[in-house]
């Protein structure tokens, strides 16, 4: 019963939430001239010719809403149009088509410290930057001490901005924008700068922003930031929204997208390099495939994922006691591990001439961190146990890419499959 009531009130709350930003059918086309005509003469000469520009559509039919008090992320790879979208929301660019409705005072800045002049002192810059953010002199006077205090620059108030370290510059800029007190905050890749200590402070401040019911739109390509701070996010690709929804889901899609892009790029290059192989070829390895836990063939995996290596073969002659093996090698050529079924007490007595089949090695959890790795596959004969004879050995038959899970930034090569517990 109480559950039902809770659900009802929850529903009411969400439906009551006002829309802060409404983006409707936004498209943006840029005209990109072949040569930029910056002089009258060139323009005059060009009037007679055909117009020489190409149209580049940066955004296509973008639709979404940001609710009041929401922390909304926009992610995507370079050139996907995310900054253009933010600029349209900030009304720096005019959309070619579509409409934007904004409720509440929007912060007119995209990057921190825009409008700061290096020749001025910190004090003068606060006044200049503050008025660019739309504050009156009176308001700045009132908040001046707080701004300087938050930026931890009390001793440097009258030092010229150009003599500040870059960290100090960012601190001043961030502090100013925090105190500008807009209801909607637009930010482009801001968290990439500043030392860890100050970053933590900024994030703390972001949380306060949310508690006060303010809306934040953050553009970034950092998955970690979106996962940690955003309620919802939109993934852009080539000017279109690919996915919109919970930050967790959107970032997962983004990771998957990056992986498949990488694979597509690598398949092209893979064919070029010839495989190094040797052996009597009484049995030939016809193919080497790697699969994920869903039996889907792929090349990219997350650290700790299960992976299956399938070696398919065809026998030209009958071979007694062959054994299949795999080895993993890093990009530097170091042997990381090697295994064969004989060592795991599995024996194949004989493979008859003409026989076709496969051998699988199931790896329960990939023990490597972000990077590229090669898989070498081989068949050796068991005839002379002391010095096995190579039947077919293919060096670096397959390349796989591994990415750390959930942006865990562990270092090294080996993936420590561990959980941290903090009490």
């Amino acid at each position, binding site marked *: 019963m109480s559950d039902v009531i809770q659900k009802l009130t929850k529903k009411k709350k969400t439906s009551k939430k006002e829309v802060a930003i409404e983006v409707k059918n936004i498209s943006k086309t*840029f005209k990109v001239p072949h040569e930029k005509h*910056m*002089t*009258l*003469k060139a*323009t005059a000469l060009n009037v007679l010719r055909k117009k020489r520009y190409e149209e580049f559509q940066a955004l296509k039919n973008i639709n979404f809403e940001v609710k009041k008090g929401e922390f909304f992320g926009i992610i995507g790879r370079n050139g996907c149009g995310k900054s253009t979208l933010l*600029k349209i929301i*900030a*009304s*720096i*660019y*005019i959309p070619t088509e579509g409409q934007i409705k*904004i409720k509440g*005072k*929007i912060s*007119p*800045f*995209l*990057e921190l410290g*825009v*409008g700061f*002049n290096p*020749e*001025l002192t910190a004090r*003068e810059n606060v*006044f*200049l930057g503050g*008025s*660019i953010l*739309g*504050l*009156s*002199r009176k308001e700045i006077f009132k908040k001046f001490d707080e701004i300087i205090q938050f930026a931890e620059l009390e001793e440097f108030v009258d030092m010229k901005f150009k003599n500040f370290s870059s960290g100090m510059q960012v601190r001043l800029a961030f502090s100013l924008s925090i105190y500008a007190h807009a209801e909607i905050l637009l930010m482009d890749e801001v968290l990439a700068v500043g030392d860890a200590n100050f970053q933590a402070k900024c994030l703390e401040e972001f949380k306060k922003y949310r508690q006060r019911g303010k809306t934040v739109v953050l553009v970034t390509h950092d998955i970690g930031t979106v996962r940690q701070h955003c309620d919802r996010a939109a993934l852009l690709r080539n000017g279109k929204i690919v996915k919109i929804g919970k930050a967790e889901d959107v970032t997962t899609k983004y990771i998957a997208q990056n992986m498949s892009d990488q694979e597509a790029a690598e398949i092209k290059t893979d064919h070029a390099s010839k495989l190094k192989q040797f052996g009597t070829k009484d049995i030939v390895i016809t193919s080497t495939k790697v699969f994920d836990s869903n039996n889907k063939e792929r090349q990219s995996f997350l650290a700790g994922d299960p992976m299956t290596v399938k070696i398919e073969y065809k026998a030209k002659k009958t071979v007694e006691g062959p054994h299949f093996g795999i080895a993993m090698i890093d990009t530097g050529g170091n042997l990381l591990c090697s295994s064969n079924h004989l060592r795991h007490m599995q024996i194949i007595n004989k493979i008859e001439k003409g026989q076709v089949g496969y051998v699988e090695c199931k790896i329960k959890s990939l023990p490597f961190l972000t990077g590229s790795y090669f898989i070498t596959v081989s068949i050796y004969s068991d005839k002379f146990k002391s010095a096995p004879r190579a039947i077919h050995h293919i060096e670096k038959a397959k390349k796989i890419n591994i990415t750390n899970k959930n942006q865990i930034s562990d270092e090294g090569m080996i993936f420590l499959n561990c959980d941290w517990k903090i009490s």
Partner: protein
Amino acid sequence: MEKIKQYNYFGLTRELALTDFKLKYQGSFFGYLWSLAKPLMLFGVLYLVFTRFFRLGGSIPHYPVYLLLGIVLFNYFVESTSASMGSIVGKGDLIRKVYFPRIILTVSTSITALITLLLNMIVVFIFMILSKTVPTIDTPFLVLLLLELFVLVSGVSLFLASLFVRFRDIAHIWEVCNQVLFYAVPIIYPLSFVPGRIGKILLLNPLAQIIQDSRFVLITHQTATAGSMLHFPYVFIPYTLPFIVFAFGYWFFQKSAAKFAEEV
């Protein structure tokens, strides 16, 4: 467009104008004096040439102040329009990243130049005292004339600033125009030297009208003004032209402003 209303136009304009003014003279020992040096040097040379060698200004009472006032006002026109022309392009970085009414940039540059003009006017007043010019009942009209000049300068600036975003050779063209203008406006020569009809045509130029009227109210009533030389309805041309120029400049600027961020 709710957000524009909430924007503090005035504060930003003042802050930008003051910053520009501050930076202009920062790091140089004599600071503001340098901006005074230019018109004073020109004045010195012209004064020597035209009173000692050609005796051009001999017939005009208080010719030195008369000359100086003309140079200071013309100098303001040139400096202000040239500086404003680059006001949008020079702040391209800001425009691409922040939204605020773009007109603030151009207006604040005009105001920076206006501050310099007002300081230069103090020098003119000092010269007036030295040459014992007597202020008359007309003197306060100078304020209205300076206002008219500001409107003219702003109109031209807005037009040039938006044009400069797309065509960079406007800067060179404008430089040539200014050179022509210097001789088309009665600065060094008295208008009475110009044969009848041409003098009248020259006075249709609001810049000439403003300079002549300023001399009239400030220095000597022996100045040929638009009011005394032109007949109805031509007399209205120089007085209304600044406002027409401003209206056109403003319209042109606002029309192009939306695309500044992309074109800069």
